[in-house]
């Protein structure tokens, strides 16, 4: 990014190749809409290009990129007049398709159902809890980088990650109970 910031904008292609998939997954996890997620990925790289001179090489690039991504997501949600909320039914339907697309032994089906349940539990998490899990688990970000993105202390991040996974566990078990009854 330092090279892009210094004027070699073509080098943004390298960053795109490295980061566009994780960014896409971040947005899909947050809003459940593939098309919108693709638009937002485009928007993030556009903003990176436009505001490249604001990048401080001493700062974590990942943290800077996710700050831009969060702002782009918020702007988009405001434009649409909605919060970044997942349409759970649509999402679950699509997950069910994914599971049924590769039929296998019973265990696979059972695991698929568990994963579908886990996905539903993720979608039902409040947005801020879902986001911190997505950043820490799916995006594999360090607590230090997440703290920078969210503008809080590293200790706070650890507590919030723990609370989020506990909340996920509660939702998951509630859904499992619902399914069993």
């Amino acid at each position, binding site marked *: 990014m330092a090279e892009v910031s210094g004027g070699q*904008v*073509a080098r*943004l*292609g390298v960053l*795109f190749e490295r980061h*566009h*998939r994780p960014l*896409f*997954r971040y947005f*899909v996890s947050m809003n459940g809409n*593939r098309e919108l*997620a*693709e638009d937002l*990925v*485009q928007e993030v*790289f*556009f*903003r990176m*290009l*436009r*505001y490249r*001179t*604001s990048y401080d090489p001493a700062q974590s690039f990942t943290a800077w990129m996710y*700050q*831009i991504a969060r*702002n782009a997501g*918020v*702007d988009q949600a405001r434009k649409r007049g909605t919060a970044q909320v997942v349409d759970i039914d649509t999402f679950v339907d699509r*997950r069910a398709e*994914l599971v049924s697309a590769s039929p296998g032994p019973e265990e696979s089906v059972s*695991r698929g159902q*568990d*994963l579908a349940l*886990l*996905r539903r539990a*993720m979608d039902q998490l409040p947005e801020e809890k879902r986001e911190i*899990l997505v950043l*820490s*688990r*799916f995006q594999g970000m360090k*607590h230090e980088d997440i703290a920078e993105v969210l503008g809080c202390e590293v200790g706070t991040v*650890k*507590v919030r*990650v*723990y609370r989020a*996974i*506990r909340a*996920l*566990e509660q939702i*998951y078990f509630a859904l499992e109970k619902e399914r069993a009854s």
Partner: protein
Amino acid sequence: MTCDQARIQMLGGGEGKDFAEHLESCESCRSEVSRIGTLWQSLDLLPTEEPSGKVRDRFYEMLGAYRQGQASMTMPVKQARPKMVWQVAAAAALLVVGLGIGYGVREDRSRPELVQLREEVASMRQLVALSLMQQQSASDRLRGVSWSYQVEPSDEEVMNALVTTVNHDPSVNVRLAAVDALRPFTGSPATHVMARNAVIQALPKQTTPIVQVALIDFLAELKERNAAPELRRLVSDPDIDSGVRKRAEWALERMQ
């Protein structure tokens, strides 16, 4: 180490002698580590979503257009072709606006800098759309027309560029795409009158039946009664393609 400290540490790897000692002595935390740890691990098993190939195409298209825009900024104005002057002016204006707002992305959303920053993003979209519509290659111009959907429909400059494309672009495909791209402008309070008039005035300039039909359909959709004289002229002109004449007749009926 307390239970609370141990539980918070477990997701960060749970390293350290204190943590290990605590687990040894606390059954409740051992159980918690096992349960939460399993759930934490299973998050990895969720299917991962992959973006479509369009994302890559759109990115490189945007990057290419941006670099072209940059290149035009470095040309001395005296040597620039007349049609490039607006590009230089727009780019220079953007540069001025852009100074000092870089830190905006980290600031509070209600700050005026962020409002300015969003405005600049809109200006950049305009620049990319306009730059692409000026290119030699028809596929680039087509991309420019696609980019126009990303600007505000109140943007007169982009609307005028689309009208120019409808009237003068040598490629039928680009002209057709530009006709479609004018639709949002007919719904904006700032541009709807100009856009409607532009569509009416574009009709007699077209000689390609498919573009004529596209314009007629557009006017029928808008129920634009001011287009009636031109439509009647088409209906009565024996040199006009019969399909176009029929479509014009249909549009006139629809407007009544």
